[in-house]
């Protein structure tokens, strides 16, 4: 059975339905599965619960699904870059569960590794701990957080092969490796599709077992939220 699909929409075929939970890798606009998110928009499914650190920006990434009114609930750590998000939240159309970024990453890691809950000191004594079990270990308080899984998980990788092995690039790795582990079905979009054996076995970040479907998306448009540069000091100037 081949894991390779020839397009993002085909890669999602028969996976999507209303009111399901999806998860997406990426941090800000870095390493987000843009093509797959675009394909979800085309399916027209609604009532989605989306687990992702951020919610894109207006018109880019998950912002596209927000705009189309397809998201019912977000589980995120930071959504500050999205005006539409604030609007929909304040009008009651959108539900949000804030999870501290490290707790969110660990909840996803735990979910993918079959760990239903764990204790962390992050958020103790804050509203994040409200309604959750707090337990003392070695004289310190920790709050119980639940692992997270999703019906469909979407990731973006730099390189992949037909086995589903993935290699990420620089900080575009971010949430992708843990998200890849936490989907009942994980779909990966990759910038480069390698032949089997071409990827160094020692360098693979996500082993193919976690990836059910893979699609080649060459030359994706990548956006930068905060361009910062320094001036080049010209040799011999003045």
């Amino acid at each position, binding site marked *: 059975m081949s894991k390779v699909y020839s397009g993002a929409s085909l890669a999602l075929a028969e996976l999507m339905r209303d009111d399901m939970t999806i998860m997406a890798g990426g941090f800000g606009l870095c390493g987000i599965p843009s093509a797959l998110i675009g394909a979800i928009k085309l399916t027209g499914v609604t009532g989605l619960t989306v687990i992702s650190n951020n919610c894109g920006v207006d018109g880019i990434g998950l912002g596209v699904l927000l705009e189309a009114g397809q998201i019912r609930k977000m589980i*995120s750590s930071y959504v500050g870059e999205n005006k539409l998000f604030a609007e929909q939240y304040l009008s009651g159309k959108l539900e949000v569960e804030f999870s*501290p970024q490290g707790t969110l990453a660990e909840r996803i890691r735990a979910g993918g590794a079959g760990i239903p809950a764990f204790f962390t000191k992050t958020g103790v004594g804050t509203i994040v701990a409200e309604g959750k079990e707090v337990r003392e270990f070695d004289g310190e308080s920790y709050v119980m957080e639940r692992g997270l899984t999703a019906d469909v998980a979407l990731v973006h990788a730099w390189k992949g092969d037909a086995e589903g092995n993935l290699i990420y690039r620089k900080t575009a790795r971010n949430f992708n490796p843990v998200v890849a582990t936490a989907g009942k079905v994980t779909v990966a979009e990759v910038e480069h599709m390698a032949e089997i054996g071409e990827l160094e076995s020692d360098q693979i970040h996500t082993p193919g077992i976690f990836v059910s479907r893979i699609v080649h998306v060459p030359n994706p448009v990548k956006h930068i939220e905060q361009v910062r540069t320094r001036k080049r000091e010209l040799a011999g100037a003045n």
Partner: protein
Amino acid sequence: MAWTREQMAQRAARELRDGFYVNLGIGIPTMVANYIPGGMSVCLQSENGMLGVGPFPYEGEEDADLINAGKQTITALPMTSFFSSADGFGMIRGGHIDLTILGSMQVARNGDLANWTIPGKMIKGMGGAMDLVAGVKRVVVVMEHEAKGEPKLLEQCTLPLTGQRVADMVITDLGVFTVARKGEAKLTLIALADGVTLDEITAKTAAKFENGLDRAAA
């Protein structure tokens, strides 16, 4: 007279030590990187998944796959490593990061810190702030002493907390305070900014504090 943003960053840089792994927040904390003393080796961590954060790229060399936790373009160094955000926060939660320098909206006398939300106004989310204050060994806050004429150093925070008893030091444009994280709540003034008097800083601080200026000078 008070300290400028650059001077606040410079003062915060004095908390760095050779060999430290450090996480810098957005704003003035980011500027601390410009004041790492010569000869001192400090490794900057970015919690999205990078150790060894380099300077901003030259114009035209920005890489969309290479950003810091503030989503700004940056560069890698020869010693840089990349990892997942789960590992990035494992480093933080596991106490492997020596120091974090971050901004805040309020700090209480007992070290409670509030910097993530203003109910009804700001609903952006906490990002990594709660993990950083809970997990990093030492937490240094750099912030303006007042916000629109209102003191930010308080007996108790009025905003929802980011962490309970987590601040070790507060550097403002008016001076420097140390904070006791364990035992009885205790805020101690250890330095005044240039041209700032004890009377002025007392008038603008809503938390009771001890005067440790003599001890600090001795």
